[in-house]
């Protein structure tokens, strides 16, 4: 028993290194997905018809693709085209595009949840369209998007393990290497599982804190207490 604990203890630095790569992947892909997802959502809601259709096409395409297939096609496709992108960069790009499709639908829903009267009121003050988006739409939509976004975080965190397939040494691959070396499959992957659990828990907890910190009385979908009282 003690020797097994020792084994885990000794593997911990490597597992932590893997966990850091997993977090780096997750943060980078979420950032790319956030920017692209927001653009897609704004295009879908406010864009002229051709733009809105283009955005919807983009969003449907990436939502239809299995992440592993996309990853392999990009990795070998880019190499075939003579573009050299390291495995980590390819993974971030592919995951980011994939996540942007999902994030766009979180943002679209929260943008459309804002009462149109507020937009009219802002335009009536003399604000430009961009000012309305910046000062009225986004501050509300992004608040409303946090719960959905938290869900997306926990989803993509686990998806990053597919990067294994193109040789990125993230948490799952690190675990695999240790396990094959030590022949302690179960023990190592239990440790890996616990680390994923910890990362998910930590991230969603931070987002919950953020949600509470940014909450505004009466903004729909914000307060558990308010819902609890009426249901």
């Amino acid at each position, binding site marked *: 028993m003690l020797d097994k604990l020792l084994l885990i203890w000794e593997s911990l630095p490597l597992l932590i290194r893997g966990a850091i790569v997993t977090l780096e992947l997750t943060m980078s892909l979420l950032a790319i997905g956030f920017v692209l997802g927001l653009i897609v959502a704004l295009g879908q809601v406010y864009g002229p018809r051709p733009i809105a259709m283009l955005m919807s096409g983009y969003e449907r395409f990436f939502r239809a693709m299995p992440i592993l297939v996309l990853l392999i096609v990009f990795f070998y496709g880019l190499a075939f085209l003579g573009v050299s992108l390291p495995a980590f960069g390819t993974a971030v790009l592919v995951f980011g595009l994939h996540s942007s499709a999902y994030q766009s639908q979180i943002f679209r829903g929260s943008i459309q949840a*804002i*009462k149109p*009267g*507020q937009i*009219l*009121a*802002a*335009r*009536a*003050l*003399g*604000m*430009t369209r961009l*000012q309305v988006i910046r*000062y*009225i739409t986004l*501050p*509300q939509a992004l*608040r409303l998007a946090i719960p959905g976004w938290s869900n997306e975080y926990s989803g993509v965190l686990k998806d990053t393990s597919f990067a294994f397939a193109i040789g990125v040494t993230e948490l799952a691959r690190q675990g695999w290497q240790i396990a094959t070396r030590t022949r302690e499959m179960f023990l190592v992957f239990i440790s890996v599982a616990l680390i994923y659990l910890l990362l998910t828990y930590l991230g969603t907890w931070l987002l919950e804190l953020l949600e509470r910190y940014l909450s*505004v*009385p*009466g*903004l729909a979908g914000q307060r558990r207490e308010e819902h609890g009282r009426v249901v």
Partner: protein
Amino acid sequence: MAVSSKIIVRVEDLHKRYGSEEILKGVSFTVRQGEALAIIGPSGTGKSTLLRCINRLTEPDRGRIWLEETEITSPHTDINKIRQQIGFVFQDFNLFAHLTALDNVRLGLLKVKKLPKKEATERAMHELARVGLAEHAQKYPAQLSGGQQQRVSIARALAMDPKLMLFDEPTSALDPELIGEVLQVMQKLAEEGMTMIVVTHEMGFARSVCDQVIFMEKGVIVEQGPPEQIFTNPQQPRTRQFLGKISELYGGAGR
């Protein structure tokens, strides 16, 4: 304050259609500086559409509108410049839900008029005090009653220093006991000489506060005149019928 001879708004032959239905069928009128004009009429008649055409929240199909010497309807007019000079108060307040009362009033000053923060804050607090809400400055819309929300929305419009205020049924969404506080603010505004157009079902207000009344029905002005004429001696049978029905519903013209 007396009504001056200076014309603030001129509306000329305004038309608007939605699909096959013509909502405004050639509406013309003028409003002078310091004048309070009430627009009354059955619902679905195009009153809101008319108000929204004035600041082009709705694009009219035909006809022209001027604010003083500027033609609002000209394609060369910067509509955002015009809208800064026209306050709009909506039936359902439309306060920005994520901002405090103070920030609701301050936003246009900061972002549209680009005032420095200190100046914008002072002006916003002054406007909130004017509508009797200085002590509620830090509250969010959801923490205010309907009447308070509407007063914040009036302060938000006033802060921009408008030449003209448009009110679209400002008390129709309010509980009866909250109507008075909003009408009081509007009455004070009219007495201070604000030029305003008020779409309303509050006949008492139209009668005692406004200088002119327009009765509109099915996209046309049926009758226009000073309140004494419209309320005591209407020239058109339709006006008489409408006022009769209203007083049945609302219990007389003397609220």
